[in-house]
């Protein structure tokens, strides 16, 4: 995990650069799925790294760097969702807004992604944190400040809803 206690400004900046190189892509994708808006997702990622930079000296390695950043990223996305402006903007899913993927994508995979983005946000974040970021139930519970049982409940409900959405789209296995 590495020693993250830096006294010099240069070392902090170097660490920031390193974190950006390693994790910007994942955080951007997470933020996009969360906020369903490219510009907001970029703002959220910038805000995430700004918060991380401010808190670099206080990070004691209680979890992995990625988990720490995802924690900040999810909380930032949640804060943005709560803003009055966000509530008044149409956030319906339109995958065509994204240009064609750089690699071919299986139709099933695309259906799954759209189904995940159709989930209510609480269920969507549980699926994202558990299946995409490979966080444990306990870690997710700590991040979202709910109980482990509540996390399991959300995951279970999310999978049920996913199954329903996918069946509606004519896909199910």
């Amino acid at each position, binding site marked *: 995990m590495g020693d993250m206690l830096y006294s010099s400004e240069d070392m902090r900046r170097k660490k920031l650069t390193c974190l950006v190189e390693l994790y910007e892509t994942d955080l951007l*994708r997470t933020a996009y799925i969360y906020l369903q808006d490219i510009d907001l997702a970029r703002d959220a990622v910038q805000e995430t790294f700004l918060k991380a930079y*401010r808190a670099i000296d206080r990070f004691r390695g209680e979890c992995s760097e990625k988990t720490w950043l995802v924690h900040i990223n999810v909380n930032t996305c949640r804060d943005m969702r709560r803003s009055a402006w966000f509530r008044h903007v149409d956030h319906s899913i339109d995958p065509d807004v994204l240009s064609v993927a750089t690699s071919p994508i299986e139709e099933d995979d695309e259906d799954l992604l759209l189904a995940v983005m159709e989930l209510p946000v609480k269920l969507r974040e549980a699926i994202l944190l558990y299946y*995409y970021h490979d966080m444990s139930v306990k870690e997710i519970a700590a991040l979202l400040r709910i109980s482990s049982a509540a996390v399991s409940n959300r995951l279970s409900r999310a999978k049920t809803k996913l199954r329903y959405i996918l069946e509606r789209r004519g896909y199910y296995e």
Partner: protein
Amino acid sequence: MNEQKLRMQLHRAINTRLSVLENDPYIVQRVLAIADSETKNKKKVLMVMVLSFVTIFALSAAIAAVIISRYELKMYAGVEIIDLLPEQWQQYTICHKTKSGYIVGGFQLGDDYIAPMEADDQIIYLDDGFHAHWVLKDLRLEGALFDQIQETENAFYFGLEQKKQGWCPSIMKVSKEGEIIWLFEGTEDIRLKDYIATENDEVICVGSIISMDDKTVSPRAIILKIDQNGRLVCENILDRQNVNILYAICNYQEEIVVAGVSNDWVTVSLINEECSVEQHKTYNVDGTVNALHLEQTTNGRLVLVINYSPTNNATHVSETSRVEYILMDID
């Protein structure tokens, strides 16, 4: 949905489809620029704070008190109603609409939702806007399953099951301010089905008692009376009437009426203060009784609701359940 497959597929879907999202090549510079400008501003603010130290300290204490209290309220605000509706499928969370809000027993409290969870031990009183008035959490309720709430003028009564070595039925009286007044714990061989609180703050429960040693022995109907202090003062097993299970109890025109099942018959009885049967009527039901309910109608009649599964005489198999209503008069 296979867990491993879902994980792999989601990774693939996100990484492929969202590969078009390009990273910002200038993000580091922007973050550092913002952080640097914040640092300069911080130095100016620090000077002002030093000059105004006493005033800021006093204000901070006052603000902190407000923030803390608002934070606690904020935790319960905006509760998702979908998780509160009584028709949710997990039966051990119960929700009762009071005059000015809701009381919920057995649930998991999240940041902004209340969800039914198996064997949880909290009771919460919410106003009509779903803001918490109080939360009751007690070690004695740990792992309890809630199945009934009744409300009187000055208290709530909860029917629940507590997990000891086996499951023990219990009745609990809680004040309107959220404090346990008493908790009566039954024994493992008793199954309570229904109860009422009387005008003098006693509780009469009905159900059945089973044999723990011999499961082939039929259950026998039982009536319990609990006094204002939560003590058992009367217990009656209805051996003579040969009633197996009492399902329902009701206060009707100052009489206590109970309804139960005796083999294929539905029995309706009046009981006295010693929990003994005074009058007794029976009705034949062509099938297996699933549940009974006693209720006073709006025009003052007593109705017995029977949910039963009729038996197909040709195949001798129970069919889909039906409901019948019997209006009764008490002589």
